[in-house]
C-alpha cells in the first residue's frame, strides 16, 4: 500500500508544481537551439535573471543535425548556433533573419579578423560565438619526430596511433592542404587528386571521433590526432607539457556563430541574448568553460595569462586562416569518396 500512496503523493506534487506554470500569464521566452556542451548554464541563468526571459534549450551534435531539425521543425527556434559554411548555406536558401546590429551594440567587441568573412561578408546574418582551428595534437611522450603538417602525421610511422575528426569534408581539406590547394578548392578534378592521398591515410587511422577526440588521446589509445583546437586546449590544460598543439601549414578555422532562423517567433529576445553574450564579462565565462579562440577582444583582456598562453586556443601570431565555404551538392561526392575508401 505504501507504493500506491507514494505514487499518489508524487502525482499530487507534480500537479501542484505544474499548476502555476499553466496558470501564469504568458512569459517571454527564448528557444535556443545550440551545440551540446557549448553554452554554459551560468550564462543562461544570468540572462534569465536579468531579463526575465525564460530560455528553452535544445541541443544538437552537428551542424547537419541542426539543419535537419531546423528544416523540419520550421519556425520553432529563435536562435541557432551554426558554423560558417552552414550560415552560408542557410543564407543562400533565405532561411535566416537579417540581424539588426543597432540592437546589438556589443558587436563592436568582436575583433576585426572575425568580421566580414566570406560566409557573411556584410555581417548581416551572424555574430561569432567562438572560433577555433583544426590542428594536430601530439603526445610528446610517444612522438619524438617533429610534426609540422598533415603529411607528417600520415608518414606511415604512426599507423594505428592516430585519431581524426569524423568529418569527411575536413579530411578532404587536409589532403587538399598537402597539395597546396585551398580548403574550398573542391572540384571533381581535385577530388580525384585527393583520392590516392586519402587512400594512403585511411588505413593508418585508428579512431574517428568528432565529439570528443581528446578521449582516446588522454587514454593513451592513440598518440596523435587531428582535432578541434578546443579539444587540444583542454588536453593541454589538464595534462600540461604532455600534449602539444601544432597548427599545420594551410590550416583552416571554423567560426561558430549565432544566427536567427527565418520566422523566429521571439526575434527580440534573440537579439537581446546575442548582445548579452557579447558583454566582455559574460564572454569571459564562456571562454573559461570552453577554451576555444574567443573572437571577443574585450573579453580576451579579462582572461588569465595561462589561458592566453595556451597555444591551442591562441596560436602565436594570430595567423589569418581560411574558412569553409558552402559547397552544396559536392558534399555528396565527398561523402561517397570517403565512404568508399573506408569500406575498402
Amino acid at each position, binding site marked *: 500500500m505504501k507504493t500506491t500512496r507514494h505514487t499518489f503523493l508524487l502525482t499530487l506534487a507534480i500537479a501542484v508544481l505544474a499548476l502555476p506554470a499553466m496558470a501564469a500569464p504568458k512569459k517571454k521566452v527564448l528557444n535556443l537551439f545550440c551545440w551540446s556542451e557549448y553554452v554554459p548554464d551560468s550564462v543562461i541563468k544570468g540572462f534569465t535573471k536579468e531579463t526575465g526571459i525564460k530560455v528553452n534549450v535544445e541541443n544538437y551534435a552537428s551542424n*547537419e543535425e541542426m539543419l535537419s531539425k531546423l528544416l523540419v521543425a520550421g519556425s520553432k527556434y529563435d536562435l541557432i548556433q551554426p558554423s560558417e559554411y552552414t550560415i552560408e548555406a542557410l543564407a543562400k536558401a533565405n532561411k535566416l533573419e537579417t540581424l539588426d546590429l543597432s540592437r546589438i551594440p556589443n558587436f563592436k567587441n568582436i575583433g576585426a579578423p572575425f568580421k566580414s568573412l566570406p560566409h557573411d561578408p556584410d555581417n548581416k546574418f551572424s555574430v561569432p560565438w567562438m572560433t577555433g582551428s583544426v590542428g594536430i595534437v601530439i603526445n610528446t611522450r610517444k612522438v619524438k619526430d617533429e610534426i609540422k603538417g598533415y603529411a607528417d602525421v600520415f608518414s606511415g610511422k604512426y599507423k594505428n596511433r592516430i585519431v581524426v575528426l569524423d568529418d569527411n569534408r575536413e579530411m578532404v581539406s587536409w589532403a587538399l592542404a598537402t597539395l597546396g590547394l585551398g580548403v574550398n578548392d573542391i572540384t571533381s578534378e581535385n577530388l580525384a587528386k585527393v583520392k590516392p592521398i586519402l587512400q594512403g591515410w585511411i588505413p593508418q*587511422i585508428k579512431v574517428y571521433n568528432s565529439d570528443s577526440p581528446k578521449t582516446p588521446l588522454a587514454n593513451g*589509445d592513440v598518440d596523435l590526432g587531428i582535432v578541434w583546437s578546443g579539444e587540444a586546449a583542454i588536453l593541454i590544460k589538464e595534462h600540461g607539457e604532455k600534449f602539444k598543439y601544432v597548427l599545420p601549414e594551410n590550416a583552416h578555422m571554423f567560426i561558430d556563430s549565432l544566427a536567427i532562423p527565418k520566422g523566429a517567433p521571439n526575434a527580440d529576445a534573440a537579439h537581446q541574448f546575442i548582445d548579452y553574450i557579447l558583454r566582455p564579462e559574460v564572454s569571459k565565462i564562456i571562454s573559461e568553460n570552453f577554451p576555444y579562440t574567443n573572437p571577443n577582444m574585450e573579453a580576451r583582456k579579462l582572461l588569465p595569462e595561462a589561458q592566453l598562453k595556451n597555444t591551442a586556443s591562441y596560436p602565436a601570431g594570430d595567423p589569418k586562416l581560411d574558412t569553409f565555404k558552402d559547397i552544396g551538392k559536392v558534399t555528396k561526392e565527398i561523402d561517397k569518396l570517403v*565512404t568508399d575508401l573506408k569500406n575498402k
Partner: protein
Amino acid sequence: MQTPLALLQPAHGAARRPGFIGWLLIAPLIAWLVAFVVIPALILLVYSFCQRDELGELVFSFSLENYWRVFGYVHDESGAFAWDPTYLQIFGRSLGCAGLTTILCVLIGYPVAWTLGRAPDSRRNLLLTLVMIPFWTSFLIRTYAWIIILSENGLLNGLLQYSRLISEPFPMLYTPGAVIVGLVYSYLPFMILPIYGSVEKLDNSIVEAALDLGAGPLQAFLNVILPLTRPGVLAGILLVFIPAMGMFAISDLMGGKRVPLIGNVIQDQFSGQARDWPFGSALGMSVVVLFSIAFWLGTRRQPES
C-alpha cells in the same frame, strides 16, 4: 516448430476472435503501432522515392535512384549505370557483425538462462536482478565504462601490466573485438531473459524422462531441451539480431568508427554529414524488407496443432 509468434498466442491456440471489449483493450496498442510504426514507415517509404536539394530539403519526385544506389547500381559521369557494391558490402559486414553477436549471445546466454531457470526460487530472484542491473544505468554510461576498462591506460591493461602478464599496453579498444564485446555485453540480457522464460516453463520431469530413456546429457539437450526452449531462443535471436544490426553508438564509441556499418550509414544520412534523407530512407526500407523476409522464412513452418 514453435515460433516466437506463438509466445503471443494463448497456449492452446484457441483462436478466438476478440470481441468488442477485446478490441477496446488492444486499442491503445493499435494506436501506438499506427502512430509510431505504421505512419513513420509510410513516411520513410515516401521519402525513399524522393531526392534532396542543395540544403538537404526534400524534393518530392518519384525516382528509384536511391534503391539502385543501395543495391549497387550508380550513375557514373556519363549517366550510365555502374556497378558499385559499397552499400551491399556494408550491409554484408553489418549482417556478419550482428550475426556473430547473436551467436555469441546464444552461446553465453543459454547456459546462463539455464542456470537461472533451474536455480532454487530463493536464489533465482537475486540472479535475475543481477542480469537486469545493467539496465539501471544509461546505455551511454555503460559504454563509457567499457572505454575506461579497455583503453591502453585503462583498468584491464593496468591489471595485466601490474600482474606482469604483459609489459606493453595491449590495444583492445577501437578494435573489431571491442565492438563485439560491447555488442554482446549490451544485448546479452535480451537473449537471457526470453530463454530463461522458456527454460523456466520446461517441466523438469520431461528432462528426466529423456535421461531415463537412455539419452545422455548432450542427447537430452539436443532432442528434448533445445526443441522445447526454441521459442525462447528464437525470440532472443530476434531481440538481439535486429537491434545489433542497426546499432551505431557502440561501433562509434568502442570501434573508433573505422569501418562503416549500416547503422552508421543510415544515421549519417539523417543527422550526420551526408544528410540525404531520401537515401537514408531507402536504406532503412531495405533493412525492413530484409528483416521481414527473414522473419517470414523463420516463422513460415507453423505447427499443425
